[in-house]
């Protein structure tokens, strides 16, 4: 596939690895904010080829993992309301809330359907005028514009039975919150490529300027990631901290202004609760008042049981980069992908699932 297979080429990869080994002297900690990076790093065994002085930490970049228990409980309550068809990306199906998951509720008979796109959810709404079709709007800046479009489209076509339950979140405020907590000392961020496709590179500038931490926006293929690591290493070795784009084919410094406008038209920033981090001001997206009629959290008056956190689960610390999955005492024992306790084990891109599934092996094991 064009623009994919070139970035999996072993010869270029080897050159980049040699390059990194040659220039990297200082011990450094880089955080990949994005879960898709976590998966790609694990899947390709990138840690195995890096020199020992470079360590990679996973951050809070999986929208599934950072969704608070209470939000999942509410989604489940809405899905169980009479006359509702609940639509969701496949990612959310197995995530446990306080008591249950959408997948279990589906087994109990709730009408829960996995869709690939809001286009599909809108179609379902059109085809079932006597039902209320709710879409579980989860995702970062990459996904939010596509959800915003579905609202505009529903309005344009006069579809009155389409609603969204928004738990959208924005990445830069979470990076700020993480830095302000000051728990981990970082030398660089591998910034999320597809979030940046929408927001551009400017929103990361405060990190380089105020915190003196290097940032490189990275693509998702192994060569993209190696390339970004080599760019970060160069910055660190040169004593620089700036925002660079390593994923030039997908990201421009201004981002996608059209998508930004669509997002702004439909959503406004709100405080949002992140699992493991708590409430981060202005880090979520809620529907603007003129679109209130589409807001499932306002339309549905459902009883949500009190939230319950799972004892012993370290997802919070893992999402903040304070612990590695292996440091959690439940990892691989009480908590496995088939019986997940925390969301980091559920989502394919959750750190725990990535570490478990692609459990890296050293030669000679």
């Amino acid at each position, binding site marked *: *596939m*064009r*623009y*994919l*297979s*070139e970035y999996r*080429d072993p*010869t*270029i990869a080897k*050159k*980049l690895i*040699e*390059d990194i080994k040659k220039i990297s002297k200082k011990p450094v900690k880089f955080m990949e*904010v*994005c*879960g*898709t990076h976590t998966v790609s790093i694990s899947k390709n065994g990138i840690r195995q080829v890096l020199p020992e002085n470079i360590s990679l930490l996973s951050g809070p*970049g*999986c*929208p599934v993992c950072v969704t608070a228990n209470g939000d999942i409980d509410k989604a489940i309550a809405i899905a169980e309301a009479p006359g509702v068809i609940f639509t969701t*990306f496949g990612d959310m199906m197995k995530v446990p809330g306080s008591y249950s998951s959408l997948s279990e509720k589906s087994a109990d008979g709730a009408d829960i359907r996995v869709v*690939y*796109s*809001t*286009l*599909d959810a809108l179609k379902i709404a059109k085809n079932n005028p006597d039902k209320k079709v709710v879409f579980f709007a989860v*995702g*970062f800046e*990459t*996904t939010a*514009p*596509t959800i915003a*479009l579905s609202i505009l489209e529903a309005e344009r076509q006069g579809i009155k039975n389409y609603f969204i339950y928004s738990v959208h979140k924005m*990445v830069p405020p979470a990076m700020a919150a993480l830095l302000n907590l000051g728990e981990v000392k970082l030398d660089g961020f591998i910034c*999320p490529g*597809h*979030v940046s*496709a*929408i927001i551009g590179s400017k929103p990361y500038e405060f990190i380089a300027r105020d915190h003196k931490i290097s940032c490189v926006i990275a693509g998702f293929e192994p*060569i993209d990631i190696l*390339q970004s690591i080599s760019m970060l290493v160069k910055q660190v070795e040169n004593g620089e901290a700036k925002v660079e784009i*390593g994923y*030039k*084919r*997908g*990201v*421009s410094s201004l981002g*996608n202004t*059209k*998508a930004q406008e*669509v997002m702004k038209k439909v959503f406004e920033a709100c405080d949002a609760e992140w699992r493991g981090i708590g409430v981060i001001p202005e880090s979520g997206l809620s529907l603007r008042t003129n679109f209130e009629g589409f807001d499932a959290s306002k339309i549905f008056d459902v009883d949500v049981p009190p939230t319950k956190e799972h004892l012993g689960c370290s997802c919070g610390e893992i999402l903040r980069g304070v612990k590695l999955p292996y440091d959690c005492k439940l990892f691989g024992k009480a908590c496995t992908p088939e019986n997940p306790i925390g969301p980091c084990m559920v989502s394919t*891109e959750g750190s725990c699932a990535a570490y478990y599934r692609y459990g890296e092996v050293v030669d000679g094991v």
Partner: protein
Amino acid sequence: MCLAVPGKVVRLKDLDMADVEIGGVETEVGLQLVSDVKVGEYVLVHAGYAINKIDEEGAKEMMKLFEEIGELDEIAKLRENDEIS
């Protein structure tokens, strides 16, 4: 956190929709978030929508950086193979 894949626009359709080919698969994609897309161009597809056009110049620029790391002729050879495949 966000899966997006490059796809080639093969057909423009009504209502800002297009058929996009992603590695031998054709799927309908919304173009509402991008401007001036032409048939033959590549877009990044996420959750049924094109979220950006692929910047060919940007891609070339990065490939050039790879060339600077290693021997020019070796990469040139790789490129050739790429075009054939």
